[in-house]
């Protein structure tokens, strides 16, 4: 008869209790910090069967299988899955095993002791168990060994990743301090120690291919040494305790935080405060995986990698000086690439906007001069058409007035397609409000939005074509234009082509297409521009495109980035785009066009321009 308690379990039991309490209190705090409306929404989402089902599916996919990492980097995906799923299964199967073959079976044990033993028995089951030869017991042993092997294989990859990041497909990995190194070491050693502890006793407790045959026979040479075995059990328990105790203060806090984040996200919540509620769940969910470093255009400039999302999040979490966080916030180009790669879907841009909103500006804007503006001076070149077709409104936006090539081309396209159109802001426009929003001055932006809305509605059109993706984003998200269809000109031209309204001659010119952030990543408009270009010439492949397209460097998202820093980014993006020797670079954003044109060795054109060339050529 083996004992059912041993002091070596105590480090684990105490630390586990601590971690559970810590997480529960943290969770309750986050939920209480949510705005009232959000909290209600969240609690409701937990009960509804439909959202509960989605929660379950996402928890399994994201927390256990890590499907998102699989898609980007299969090896890293396996690493995460093997550790997370393996560990989870060891806990679950361990519980079933310890219930089925509990050493307490048939014993009279006080209730409290029984409860306590439920905490540690599944973890240290083999220490208290005696080998059973039934098929059922053998299957359990096999499963436990199988998952243990799975975890150890994952840890093996993690060690390789640490030593040689390139082997797993990463250029730069996040830098950590000593504390994080210690926690990681404790994590890496948990399962090898478990293997040794279980193996050392496998002649009594039994085991399967890993612990019994490989471990006990090979590593321990088939000898059982009680002292040595005890040492391993103690080490195993202490190691677990170190990990559990440090977990809340390390990046491994992402394990519990991620689960909460998924639930909050599925309830449809978003960050509204930079250091409260949803944002806290996001910040703690970041495991500092570093995937956002290589993709960030800021890391093109040497020291600026320190401003990438991972370090931004870490600084907020550490409660770093507000000024540091503010500087990082204002540097970011808001291109959204870091969010696109983030396996946890951490929307750090929302935190940044919330942070920018906190900046206090003593001087408020004064747009009273806009009240005098009754109407945009529109041009209506085709009055004879107005009788028989729906009017299409063209709003170039203030940026496009910097690049008259775009507005001229668009006017030509409207005419050649025989459209009944009205060029609303032919004489200059009010800014759409998005640049103002990006500075955090939301109310001021709203004034601009309100005025534009008023003037656009006045026109009575049902279709609105925009040339600037920056406008497109804010029009789609903030403008209430009830019933007016909003199109970017790439979409609109594509429609015209599909409806055979434009006769384009195809040439053998080679074009590289640059996906503007606010069109691509923000709205997934990738195929329309490519369709259009396919009708005009040959599309060449750049180094990265679509959702991994690099920012042009001109982004108005950054408040503080200097021209020199921007130029480095622009040069690099041009290099990526010209990888396969295109004749011209094609963009769909006036700001990108202007930015590239300054530094590009080959010609840069807007998609509307090459359409016009195709029509005339």
């Amino acid at each position, binding site marked *: 008869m083996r004992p059912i308690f041993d002091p070596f379990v105590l480090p684990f039991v105490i630390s586990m209790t601590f971690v559970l309490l810590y997480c529960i209190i943290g969770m309750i705090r986050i939920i209480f910090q949510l705005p009232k409306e959000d909290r209600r929404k969240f609690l409701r989402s937990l009960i509804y069967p439909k959202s509960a089902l989605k929660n379950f599916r996402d928890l399994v996919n994201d927390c256990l299988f890590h499907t998102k990492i699989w898609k980007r980097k299969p090896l890293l995906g396996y690493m995460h899955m093997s550790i997370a799923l393996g560990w989870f299964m060891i806990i679950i199967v361990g519980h079933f095993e310890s219930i089925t073959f509990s050493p307490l079976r048939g014993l009279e044990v006080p209730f409290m002791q029984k409860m306590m033993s439920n905490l540690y028995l599944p973890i240290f089951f083999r220490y208290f168990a005696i080998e059973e030869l039934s098929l059922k017991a053998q299957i359990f042993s096999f499963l436990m060994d199988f998952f243990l092997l799975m975890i150890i294989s994952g840890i093996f990859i993690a060690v390789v990743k640490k030593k040689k990041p390139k082997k797993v497909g990463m250029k730069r990995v996040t830098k950590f301090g000593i504390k994080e190194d210690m926690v990681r070491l404790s994590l890496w050693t948990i399962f090898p120690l478990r293997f040794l502890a279980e193996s050392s006793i496998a002649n009594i407790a039994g085991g399967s291919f890993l612990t019994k045959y490989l471990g006990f026979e090979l590593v321990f040479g088939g000898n059982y040494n009680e002292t040595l075995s005890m040492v391993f059990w103690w080490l195993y328990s202490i190691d677990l305790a170190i990990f559990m105790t440090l977990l809340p203060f390390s990046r491994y806090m992402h394990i519990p935080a991620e689960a909460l984040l998924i639930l909050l996200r599925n309830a449809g919540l978003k960050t509204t405060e930079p250091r409260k509620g949803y944002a806290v769940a996001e910040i703690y969910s970041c495991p500092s995986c570093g995937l956002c470093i290589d993709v960030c255009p800021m890391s093109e400039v040497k020291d600026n990698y320190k401003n990438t999302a991972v370090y931004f999040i870490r600084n907020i979490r550490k409660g770093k000086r507000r000024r540091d966080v503010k500087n990082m916030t204002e540097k970011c180009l808001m291109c959204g690439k870091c969010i696109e790669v983030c396996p946890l879907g951490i929307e750090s841009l929302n935190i940044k906007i919330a942070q920018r909103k906190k900046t206090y500006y*003593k001087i408020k*804007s*004064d747009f009273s001069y806009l009240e005098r503006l009754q109407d945009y001076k529109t041009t209506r070149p085709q009055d004879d058409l107005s009788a028989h077709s729906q009017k299409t409104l063209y709003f170039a936006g203030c940026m496009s*007035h910097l690049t008259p090539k775009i507005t001229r081309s668009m006017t030509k396209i409207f005419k050649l397609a025989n459209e009944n159109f009205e060029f609303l802001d032919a004489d*200059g426009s009010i800014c759409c409000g998005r*640049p103002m929003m990006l500075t955090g001055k939301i109310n001021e932006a709203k004034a601009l939005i309100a005025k534009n809305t008023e003037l656009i509605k006045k026109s009575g059109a049902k279709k609105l074509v925009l040339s600037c993706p920056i406008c497109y984003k804010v029009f789609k998200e903030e403008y209430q234009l009830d019933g007016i269809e909003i199109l970017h000109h790439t979409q609109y031209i594509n429609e015209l082509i599909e409806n055979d309204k434009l006769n384009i001659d195809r040439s053998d010119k080679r074009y590289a297409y640059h996906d503007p952030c606010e069109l691509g990543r923000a709205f997934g408009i990738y195929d329309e521009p490519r369709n259009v270009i396919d009708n005009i010439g040959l599309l060449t492949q750049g180094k990265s495109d679509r959702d991994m397209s690099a920012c042009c460097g001109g982004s108005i998202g950054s*408040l503080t980035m200097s021209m020199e820093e921007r130029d480095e980014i622009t040069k690099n993006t041009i290099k990526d785009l010209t990888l396969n020797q295109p004749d011209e670079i094609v963009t769909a954003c006036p*700001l990108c066009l202007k930015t590239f044109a300054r530094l590009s060795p080959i010609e840069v054109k807007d998609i509307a321009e090459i359409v016009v060339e195709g029509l005339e050529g």
Partner: protein
Amino acid sequence: MDNVDLKLFNKIEALNPDINTCMACGLCTATCTAGNFTDMSFRKIILMLQRGKDKEAIELVKKCMMCGKCMMICSRGINTRNILLSITRIYNEEQNI
């Protein structure tokens, strides 16, 4: 003339040293979105600040839409938009009356 108060200009200059590279070419004014409807001119703002005419400068700054076009076009690559933002952040009306 010696005692023009350049406190605001000096503060802005400390934050945005590039303000001194302005050569008053006026490109920013020509493209200004707000300038389309008002007398807004970034070039003028710089001149006013340099002469200590803070109040007049502020009246113009208030009209800015933050569109960033002046930054795109500036022949010296000055981060004009951030200068405008800094002004609205730093300027303290009471102090300057």
